[in-house]
């Protein structure tokens, strides 16, 4: 039941996502099913989820900048007719300077996200690395050669021992490879876990500030829309438009832009918790599932925002 729900969430996300999300989904399903080298699958699934989260951030940061510019423009346009001509240029220049400064901060935050993403990609490579597959093949190769070598040596004792060793090694190859990788992963988490956690915590704080600023900007941007589409028609004489209540509802409820950044804030917190859980070996399918559903939420909202923007763009 849970597996089916998870698969359906991830499947819904697939059309917009790339191959790595599929791999993540497969890993997660395996985690739910339970398997021998669970730790590696969990790490791979976590890394996949965290990579998708980092991929979703630039769009949200861009949207936050767009809302900042929109809110600022509303103020400048509103005051423009009361400003004298020589005052207008300096007013706009100062506003532009501050917004460019903000855009630069946002770019740095995106670059930091790219760095975190690279770390998660490295973790995923470690957990699912093809080198490890190569390692497995090499070990098998050695076994094969030992076998051949033993056949060339006279004396059945050695040959029999060679066969036994070959069988034993063959059986334990996968287990050994998994252990080498799990050990390397553990070492990496022990050594760098705190630093990565600190970065995730600051990233979460950054998104929280974005959410607060976006809420303030959107609240301000919506005020004139509410005044013109809801208050004015209601106060004035005459019939109200048929869609008056719909406009009212739309402007009284949380905007899709804000819902996207709220979802991102929640996802940032959950990614951090999942990372901590992975570090202490307590990551479970439920934790990963909650991040996937939050990511699904972000994608769903992003689609809504895009649809609304397309509608607005049409004449």
């Amino acid at each position: 039941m849970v597996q089916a729900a998870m698969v359906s969430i991830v499947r819904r996300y697939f059309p917009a996502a790339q191959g790595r999300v599929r791999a993540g989904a497969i890993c997660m399903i395996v985690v739910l099913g339970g398997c021998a080298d669970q730790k590696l699958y969990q790490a791979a699934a976590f890394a996949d989820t965290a990579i998708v989260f980092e991929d979703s951030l630039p769009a949200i940061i861009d949207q936050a900048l767009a809302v900042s510019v929109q809110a600022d423009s509303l103020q400048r346009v509103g005051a423009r007719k009361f400003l004298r001509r020589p005052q207008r240029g300096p007013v706009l220049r100062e506003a532009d300077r501050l917004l460019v400064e903000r855009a630069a901060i946002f770019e740095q935050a995106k670059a930091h996200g790219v760095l975190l993403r690279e770390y998660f990609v490295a973790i995923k490579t470690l957990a699912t690395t093809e080198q490890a597959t190569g390692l497995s093949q090499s070990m098998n190769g050695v076994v094969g050669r030992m076998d051949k070598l033993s056949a060339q040596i006279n004396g059945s004792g050695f040959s029999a021992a060679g066969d036994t060793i070959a069988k034993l090694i063959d059986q334990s190859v996968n287990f050994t490879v998994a252990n080498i990788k799990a050990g390397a992963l553990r070492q990496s988490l022990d050594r760098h876990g705190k630093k990565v956690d600190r970065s995730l915590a600051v990233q979460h704080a950054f998104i929280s500030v974005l959410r607060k600023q976006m809420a303030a900007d959107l609240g301000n941007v919506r005020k004139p829309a509410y005044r013109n589409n809801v208050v004015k028609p209601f106060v004035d004489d005459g019939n109200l438009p048929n869609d008056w209540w719909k406009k009212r509802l739309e402007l009284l409820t949380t905007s899709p832009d804000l819902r996207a950044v709220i979802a991102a804030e929640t996802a940032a917190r959950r990614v951090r918790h999942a990372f901590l859980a992975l570090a202490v070996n307590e990551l479970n399918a439920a934790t990963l599932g909650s991040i996937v559903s939050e990511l699904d939420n972000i994608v769903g909202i992003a689609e809504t925002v895009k649809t609304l923007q397309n509608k607005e763009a049409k004449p």
Partner: protein
Amino acid sequence: MTGTTDLPPLKPQDIADLTLGQLRALRDRYQTLEWQESIEALAPENQNRAALQWMSVQNAILKLENAKLTSIRNKLVRNEKDLRKARNAVKKTVKGLESTTKTLNVVGDFLTVVGRIVPLLMV
């Protein structure tokens, strides 16, 4: 005993947050019908003064918001060196796995050579 409740002193960040909240409330007021009507009713000189004040409020909001973002950005940048180190260490580990593979291949090749030598020794 002063007879008043001692409150913890406000931190600079708290003061900045409170100021930002007040400025935003003021900016929201500029968007109300009442304020729009009242500014229209002013003399041109006062309209200009109100508009300049409005611009100062908006600039102050942007400056305070940017300051907050800058302080978090600085923390992000401070962590970048560590993050790069962590990423490189994991990459190195993956490379280590690769070299283990290479070593095993060399061992395998060596065994092949041994396999060819052994029959010669046994003759």
